[in-house]
């Protein structure tokens, strides 16, 4: 009987999403003019990878990026008016990123366009196990959690695709 219960628990655990932070932002969907909600666990990512065309350069790059990633979770909201989201909405996410496994590697506050960008990296045993990106603007809120070993260079390189201009890194001074 105990074995059956253990197996059931394992089966339930296997179905649970591997999301490392809870967004709790669903209440904003009703106010948003544009919403992107992506929630893909490891199984779905492996499944999606089979549909990526290795001959297409962009898709091949994404396919390579997916190696080592076990979950992608994105919530992105665009609003028509300011004040649709409250700072507390983002604070609830930030609080979870205060856990010792998480380290903030980038924190940019732009007073000019009132945009804040924060990038957090999760590591365990000196190995990267997750990435979180928080971007807020008066009319936009985006939270990303990528679970697994994320190749930041590859991900940033994708900035050159999808119609987003690639930022050329200046040559390093010797």
């Amino acid at each position, binding site marked *: 009987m105990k074995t059956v219960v253990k197996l059931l628990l394992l089966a339930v655990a296997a179905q649970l999403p591997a999301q490392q932070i809870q967004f709790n932002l669903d209440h904003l969907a009703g106010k948003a003019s544009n919403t992107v909600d*992506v929630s*893909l666990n490891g199984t779905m990512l492996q499944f999606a990878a089979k549909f990526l065309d290795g001959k297409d350069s962009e898709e091949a790059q*994404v396919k390579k990026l*997916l190696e080592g990633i076990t979950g992608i979770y994105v919530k*992105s909201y665009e609003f028509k008016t300011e004040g649709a989201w409250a700072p507390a909405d983002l604070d609830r996410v930030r609080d979870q990123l205060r856990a010792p496994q998480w380290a903030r590697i*980038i924190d*940019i506050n732009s007073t000019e366009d009132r945009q804040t960008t924060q990038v957090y990296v999760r590591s365990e045993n000196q190995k990267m196990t997750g990435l979180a990106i928080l971007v807020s603007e008066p009319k936009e809120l985006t939270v990303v959690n990528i679970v697994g070993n994320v190749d930041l260079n590859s991900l940033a390189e994708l900035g050159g695709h999808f119609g*987003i201009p690639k930022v050329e890194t200046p040559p390093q001074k010797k």
Partner: protein
Amino acid sequence: MDWLEEELRRALARKEPEPGFTARVSARSRAGGRGALSRRWLATAASVLVLAGSGAGYRWYQGVRAKEQVMAAVRIAGGKLNQVQNRVLEVAK
């Protein structure tokens, strides 16, 4: 009424079937049974094919949807990281 009773008795009298009747009926029944059975198999096979086809179609739809979600997620995450890179470079100038 005697003639009527007589007619009825004759009409309803037990008659032995012609020789070979049982064999003919059995043969017909077997032939009909086989036809019904093959029709049933055909219907089952068709249902299985339809189910398998719709299952494969649904799996394909799920896969394409998952792929689109991955591309959207990477587009957003890559785009935001690109913005970060941009800002860091601006500050470094």
